[in-house]
């Protein structure tokens, strides 16, 4: 057990982590906290469905032990924006990206890191960032289109704010 003194900060809320330190973060998120937007795909960091942000990086929560997340900032798809209006979420709806939808939270969380680091990504940048997020429905072209759309939304919201 990790002990009462150890807290996990998930989507700006603190949670007590009274679990085995090697428990995968995904288990904690889904089974203990109840944040089921993050999906279990392969369980071995190969598909990307479980992607969440850990201090701003797109980690695979199915292989990340809870102990690694102590003292760090965790963001799941539920915490990406307060009202579901992150530029990527707007673009996803606009382009109607999902088919079955199972991989989409992972796709969006990976894309969010890309847009943070490269606000105007090329097709090649998108491929480099998201080639580890597998979609069994083959929505890759719509994913790519939506990321370009999100980049434009982000750009216009930044210019409107300034």
């Amino acid at each position, binding site marked *: 057990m990790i002990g009462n003194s150890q807290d996990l900060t998930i989507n700006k809320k603190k949670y007590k982590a009274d679990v085995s330190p090697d428990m995968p973060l995904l288990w904690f998120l889904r089974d203990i906290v109840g944040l089921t937007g993050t999906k279990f795909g392969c369980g*071995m960091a*190969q598909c990307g469905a479980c992607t969440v942000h850990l201090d701003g990086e797109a980690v695979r929560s199915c*292989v990340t032990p809870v102990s690694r997340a102590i003292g760090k900032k965790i963001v799941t798809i539920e915490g990406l924006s307060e009202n579901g209006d992150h530029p990527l979420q707007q673009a996803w709806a606009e382009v109607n990206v999902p088919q079955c939808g199972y991989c989409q939270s992972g796709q969006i969380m990976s894309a969010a890191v*890309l847009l943070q*680091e490269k606000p105007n990504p090329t097709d090649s940048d998108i491929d*480099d*960032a998201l080639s580890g997020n597998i979609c069994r429905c083959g929505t890759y072209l719509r994913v790519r289109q939506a990321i370009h759309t999100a980049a434009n939304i982000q750009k216009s919201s930044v210019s409107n704010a300034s």
Partner: protein
Amino acid sequence: MHPKRILQTSSYYPKKGVSVILTIAALLSMVVVFSFRPEGSSITSKKPPFTQKDSIASKKAFLKVYAVLMSPRCMNCHPAGDIPLQGEDSHLHLQGVKRGPDGKGIYALKCANCHQSHNLPGLHMPPGNPKWGLPPANMPMVFQGRSAHQLAGQLLDKKRNGRKSIKALIDHITKDTLVLAGWYPAQGLAKPPLSHREFVKAFNEWISKGAVSP
């Protein structure tokens, strides 16, 4: 007794004839010793680089080193391109991961996003190390596709070996935890063909016997 008499009879001081013979013998022995010094070496040189130069033994030792460096546990993270390799057949990393400027991946596909500080149990689980990554883009230190001759030359060239001196190179292969990780592979992966101790021994032998390229 008279002091002069004591001096003459003392066993601590040889008689005149004996001392002449000893002097000649000492001079002869110096001549013999210096006549057998290695060709090309200098008695006055302060630090000979290689103590027991032996090109055949050096090359032979490097071939052992080469077998380790070209094993998947070493070569997979020293690819010819910007995509790391995986598995016993050294296929391209399945997630399409790329090196990035610092060798730690790019965007949402950074090495540490999946690779933890330790191996995870189970087949096909990501191996781990706190320093997991490739060499940086400006010093890729490629092993894949290099012949033994090419790799030996690369290892000795500071412009291509991570700016390491011979001493730093030996320290690196002896102590660096990322090098040592090769001998603690994830489940289902083979170790390099020599033990780490044998590898270090062969590496040192290669260097000490002349660092000769095969």
